[in-house]
């Protein structure tokens, strides 16, 4: 297979404008037969997953089910033992400049924010623009400030990450990822390390992105977000994808015993 879609080189995916339920474009992220072990634990078992352009896929499941590993395998922060990961039809290179180049196209937001602790908020948002995208400093800063404005943190541009709350740090992290004009964004439990009152400010930013047609893979425990923003819900258990369906179907009528059990535990209190 060669790279599908001539529109691939156009940069930001504004094409489909998919709100939840809208039709989605050609495959942007594909995992085929992906396997991985952590020692004895078979953490990813024959994973096949396709995420279309403009699609929002929410991955849920009990802890240890492999959902974070799945998310991290997409930009090869986690190596895989067998199977292939394709971004826009191109297999992810194992190492080196080629891998770095593809990673720049897929933004990632971490549970623990991982803002660069020795750099200001603005520098966090401009560093990779200058070093990877080779933009001029003025251009990068203008874009950085515009994105900080967008996540409501323009006033904090010159602070260091440690001076911000968790919710603010996570919004900066989203701005940092967006500054690269990524084709897709990966969220690895973006709200799990946040105080309850800060979860919504982050989810709000994510909802806006989803509504604007950003391709997103979101590992989360926020079922409200899954219901309202996702095109598909992927339910994982014991390293396998057990269900992969539209959110309204999944939450109303989970097919598998495993999913019913999981939902009953998290929704009943």
């Amino acid at each position, binding site marked *: 297979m060669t790279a599908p879609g001539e529109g691939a080189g156009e940069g930001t995916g504004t094409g489909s404008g998919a709100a939840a339920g809208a039709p989605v474009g050609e495959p942007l992220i594909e995992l085929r037969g992906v396997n991985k072990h952590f020692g004895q634990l078979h953490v990813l078992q024959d994973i096949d997953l396709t995420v279309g352009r403009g699609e929002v896929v929410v991955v849920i499941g009990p802890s240890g089910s492999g959902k974070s590993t799945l998310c991290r395998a997409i*930009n090869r*922060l986690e190596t895989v033992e067998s199977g292939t990961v394709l971004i826009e039809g191109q297999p992810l290179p194992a*190492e*080196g*400049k080629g891998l*770095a*180049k*593809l*990673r*720049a*196209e*897929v*933004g*990632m937001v*971490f549970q*623990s924010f*991982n*803002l*660069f*602790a*020795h750099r200001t908020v603005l520098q966090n948002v401009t*560093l*990779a623009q200058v*070093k*990877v995208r080779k933009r001029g400093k003025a251009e990068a800063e203008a874009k950085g400030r515009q994105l900080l404005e967008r996540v409501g943190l323009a006033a904090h541009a010159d602070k*260091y990450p*440690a001076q911000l709350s968790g919710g603010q740090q996570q919004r900066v*992290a989203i701005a*940092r*990822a967006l500054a*690269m004009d990524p084709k897709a964004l990966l969220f690895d439990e973006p709200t799990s390390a946040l105080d309850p009152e800060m979860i919504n400010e982050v989810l709000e930013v994510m909802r806006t992105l989803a509504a604007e047609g950003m391709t997103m893979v979101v590992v989360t425990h926020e079922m409200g977000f899954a219901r309202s923003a996702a095109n598909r819900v992927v339910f994982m258990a014991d390293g396998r994808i057990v269900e992969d369906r539209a959110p309204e179907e999944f939450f109303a009528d989970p097919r598998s015993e495993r999913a019913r059990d999981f939902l009953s535990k998290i929704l009943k209190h």
Partner: protein
Amino acid sequence: MHVLTDNWSAYWHGFLGTLWLTLVSAALALVLGVVVAGFRVSPVKPLRAFGTGWVTVLRNTPLTLLFFIVVLGLPRFDITLPFFTFAVLALGCYTSAFVCETLRSGVNTVPVGQGEAARSLGLTFTQTLGLVVLPQAYRAVVAPLGSVMIALAKNTAIAGSFSVVELLGTYRTLNELGYGIVWTFVWIAVGYLVLTLAISALFNLLERRVAVSR
């Protein structure tokens, strides 16, 4: 006291020799140390193996033996250099192994998430190390690096036995002139103290600077 005043020029030349040897070897050790530390944390297996080999060999060889290898060994391959350069090579390579390990332990104090975030933005390995990880490792590394540099300053004394003008070597001249051994050595020791205390002060300053930033 008159040992010093009578032989001010001999002491001064010796002191300058030691100072110069320390500075040049330190520069070499820092450059090599950073490169080899980069090798040791890199994702490329042959580079890691080379880094490990470098550290293992140089850290576990007595420095005097290393001097012999350089001074007697290299000329066999038709590499003849001034004794000063030989001494810098021996001291610089030897110390680079310690610099490397100091840096590597500093790298390990930086949370892995920092490197992951950098890589996820498309930064290459070298950029990740140079722009994100090492600057944060730096604060953990300043104090132990000071110790390594002080050790280097004292290790330069060995070069005196290999025809390099340095501070300890002045004792031979003064001994032949018939000065008392005790005071000769007291002033040599003072010379080393001046140098090592200056290094301490420099690193204390650096430590305070990284403490206020961030």
